[in-house]
């Protein structure tokens, strides 16, 4: 009996710590603030273990059976913990409640384990032997877990699969006990069935974790997936690693929280700060509310209309604690009206003119998106500019997609707009390009509180080095979609 039990002690100790680490990691990835998350989780977990140890005294006879049951339960709860936490986070509310309940339940069950094991050994070994061997193995198991978790498990398996794997270990221990020490026939059959079911469940989880989209994303993105959601329009994924929050739309990086301020300050301020008294602003795209955050720095602005296709996106960025912290709650500002509509169609169907228009669409990577960069679109844009109004347009990278960039500028000019090209360096993106329509003195009234732009940086935006300077290109029309072809060629070359 003895060797099996001792090996089990090692294994279950490893599992116990792994679950604790998983809970701590998931929650600090998802909720941020890792010190706080980790210590509260450890606290809850340890106290729950105490509760478990205390409860062990109420288990009288049938220690072996109880031990097997505990193993099965820990296996299921711990094994599914990571995926349950991700699902709850991505789909609903009450994440913290589920988190702490889960931690408490696992902790209690793990707390039961050691006292039960000791009682199983009491007939075979002396008490001092039991204590020293069991505790030594317990600590060694913990050491193994704490080393394997960051070095092997998270990088190679990811959280979800690690959890399933260790769930299987727990259930495996249960099965081994059942084989080795079959209790009475009837009870054993029931227990065996339970263990086998649990084993199958976890094995299926392990096998499927690659196929279910969310779980796969845990592997796909370099950082930990904080949330993944499909809207009817796109696939939204937010990842996080040590304070770097990233948004991917259909697997394309939209921003990194470390340097998005460079992008959004450059998009908004050269134009908007050049106006005397801007009141009415229109933002097309930009459902993340980050450009909006910059616009709200201007006290004269009273009315902002933000048109974004995807309600899933604007809702997420106005409600999610971390994301709305990033945009400083801009989407909930009383000065803002959010409209979920297809921008070109909305622009065509709605009159109204604006002092400043921001155009921040995804890059022209498809024919559908290419429409938003055509001469017809810019003619529509022009129609919505108030006299003396200004606009700024994101225009992809003048370095990686040089012809695309200049094609957009030429198209805007062909629609009768006077444009000035400018660009900024955003570390996570590279060189990024924009077009400015309007104000004669960009940067006149830069607001306070900026992190990137001052007068010197502003002047530098308008300088184009040789490798990004203008090229002969076609005008982009609905009837030729020249831009999409340039863009595809250029980014394909970059990818190679």
């Amino acid at each position, binding site marked *: 009996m003895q060797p099996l039990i001792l090996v089990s002690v090692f294994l279950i100790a490893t599992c116990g710590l792994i679950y604790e680490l998983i809970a701590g990691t998931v929650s600090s990835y998802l909720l941020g603030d890792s010190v706080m998350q980790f210590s509260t989780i450890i606290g809850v977990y340890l106290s729950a273990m105490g509760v478990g140890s205390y409860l062990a005294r109420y288990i009288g006879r049938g220690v072996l059976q109880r031990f097997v049951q505990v193993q099965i339960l820990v296996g299921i709860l711990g094994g599914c913990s990571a995926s349950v936490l991700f699902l709850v986070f991505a*789909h609903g509310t009450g994440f913290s409640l589920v988190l702490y309940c889960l931690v408490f339940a696992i902790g209690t069950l793990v707390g039961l384990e050691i006292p039960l094991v000791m009682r199983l050994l009491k007939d075979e070994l002396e008490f001092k032997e039991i204590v020293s061997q069991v505790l030594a193995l317990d600590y060694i198991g913990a050491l193994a877990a704490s080393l394997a978790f960051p070095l092997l498990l998270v990088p190679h398996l990811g959280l979800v699969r690690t959890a399933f794997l260790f769930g299987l270990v727990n259930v495996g221990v249960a099965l081994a006990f059942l084989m080795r020490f079959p209790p009475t026939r009837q009870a054993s059959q029931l227990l065996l069935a339970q263990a086998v079911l649990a084993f199958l469940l976890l094995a299926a989880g392990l096998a499927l974790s690659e196929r279910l989209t969310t779980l796969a994303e845990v592997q796909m993105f370099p950082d930990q997936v904080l949330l993944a959601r499909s809207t009817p329009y796109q696939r939204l994924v937010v990842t996080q690693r040590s304070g770097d929050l990233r948004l991917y739309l259909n697997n394309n990086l939209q921003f990194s929280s470390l340097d998005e301020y460079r992008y959004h300050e450059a998009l908004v301020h050269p134009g908007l700060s050049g106006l005397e008294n801007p009141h009415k602003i229109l933002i097309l795209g930009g459902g993340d509310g980050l450009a909006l955050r910059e616009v709200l720095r201007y006290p004269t602005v009273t009315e902002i209309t933000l048109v974004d*296709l995807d309600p899933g996106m604007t809702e997420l960025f106005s409600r999610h604690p971390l994301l709305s912290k990033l945009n400083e709650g801009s989407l909930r500002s009383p000065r803002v009206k959010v409209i979920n509509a*297809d921008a*070109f*169609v909305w622009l065509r169907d709605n009159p109204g003119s604006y002092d400043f228009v921001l155009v921040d669409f995804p890059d022209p990577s*498809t024919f559908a998106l*290419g429409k938003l960069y*055509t001469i017809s679109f810019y003619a529509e844009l022009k129609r919505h500019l108030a006299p003396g109004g200004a606009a700024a347009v994101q225009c992809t990278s003048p370095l990686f997609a040089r012809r695309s960039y200049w094609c957009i500028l030429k198209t805007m000019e062909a629609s009768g707009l006077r444009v000035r090209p400018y660009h900024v360096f955003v570390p996570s993106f590279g060189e990024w390009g924009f077009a400015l329509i309007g104000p004669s003195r960009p940067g006149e009234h830069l607001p306070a509180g900026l992190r990137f732009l001052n007068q010197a940086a502003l002047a530098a935006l308008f300088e184009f080095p040789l490798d990004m300077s203008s090229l002969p290109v076609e005008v982009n029309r609905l009837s030729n*979609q020249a831009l999409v072809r340039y863009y595809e060629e250029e980014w394909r070359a970059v990818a190679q």
Partner: protein
Amino acid sequence: MNRRQFLQGSLTLAGLSLVGCPSGRTPTLEGTVVGASWQRGHRLREASELKTGQRLRTDVAILGGGVAGLSAAWRLRRAGLEDFLLLELESDLGGNSRAATYPASRAPWGAHYLPVPTLESRAVIELLKELDVMDEAGQCREELLCHEPQERLYLHGRWQEGLFPTLGATRRDLKEWGEFQAEIERLRRLRDRQGRFAFALPAPLSSPEWLELDGLSMKAFVGQKGWTSRRLRWWLEYACRDDFGCSLEQTSAWAGLHYHAARPPADQLLVWPEGNAWLTDRLAAPLQERARTGCLVRSVRTDGRRVITRVEHREGAFEVESRRAIFCLPSFLRPFVLEGDAPERFTYAPWVVANLVLQRGDEAACWDNVLYESPSLGYVVATHQSLATRPGPTVWTWYRPLTGNPVTEREEMLARPWESWRQEIVSELSRPHPDLIDRLERLDVMLLGHAMVRPVPGLRASKALEAASQPKKGVHFAHSDLSGFSLFEEANYHGARAAEEVLAALDKRSPSLL
């Protein structure tokens, strides 16, 4: 599909397979066959005397409200002649350029595009300027030019851009295709001493010097050139089927080459959700009570001074007495309607057109979507010009010309029930779109017995077309048939030409638009 639906879906699937019941979903697809009023039209062939009640008088009677008839009315109005009456059998004007109306979109029942006109199509240019499609400099409105991507072809289980099957083409295929294009480039530039193009659009403005090509079939022409590429032949035949409803063998080489050589190399198309009904609706709008629908023209008699047209209408028969008449009905009706008139026999291709109403279009769809070596011509997408970036509800218009023996094809076509068309169309389009049946809400079929005149070898060279275009005792003739193939430009040309003849005869002179 979000994850929850995905999970639900897989659970349902698992459940179904457990119960051992395959997901044989019977689609509740609706639709009808909406043939043109051929039953009423066929009554022309029964010789029965009609009792006539009322007699209406007008300067000019226009018989038939297709593009030719509407263009004639338009031309008369531009010259200030307002006293005319247009008589049309169907309940809508437009003929082969009519459209269907669905909640998702309007969609064509026939003609679906107009190429940006060549300089010779002067009347079309005038019309487009009047309708604000074209500006004074000759630029067409951007939003009406067919958006990219325009065409794609399905072959080897995938879509390629463009209609020539380049995917998997051999060097020989491409070489012959290149030779064909070079030949077209040469023909495109040919002019006679008077400056007339060998291939002009409208066709009657072409030089007669190259008409020996009309004696040859397109198939024979391709044979003479030594082109054997199956892909090239398919592509050439596709063009003949698309424009004329003919096989290579049924098309005269002159007409087959005209399709390519009369237009600039990369011609742009004007398209609307409802197709050319956008144009006919605008031509029809100002006519009001001067256009009467539901009127079957039974007979036309003329004594040189007056033309008497007898008309059958739901509310009784009546007569129209006019100084002149412009006959814009298909030419095959002439022996039945016009006393003592029997022009050269025109032959016609029957066509089937279907409108498929879909919950959701295809993200990657082009305007024109063709299946390689398929009996149909594929489908065009009604909402292609939408400015939205996401596919929404749409209508696909599917076309199939029947290129066999016209008489038997026509009979079989009219006898086939809706279910049989549905079966054919859905199974064909399910190849590239396996989920079609889940998105398809409605499928309506239009059967057109005499849809298009066939430019068979010899028709043009025999001068039969010119003879049939000559006015006879106060009756003038205008229908696209008179060009030997039916195109908007041809119908419009003949309508304007006949109207100008009438204007001259009635001493209402006005500078020619031709």
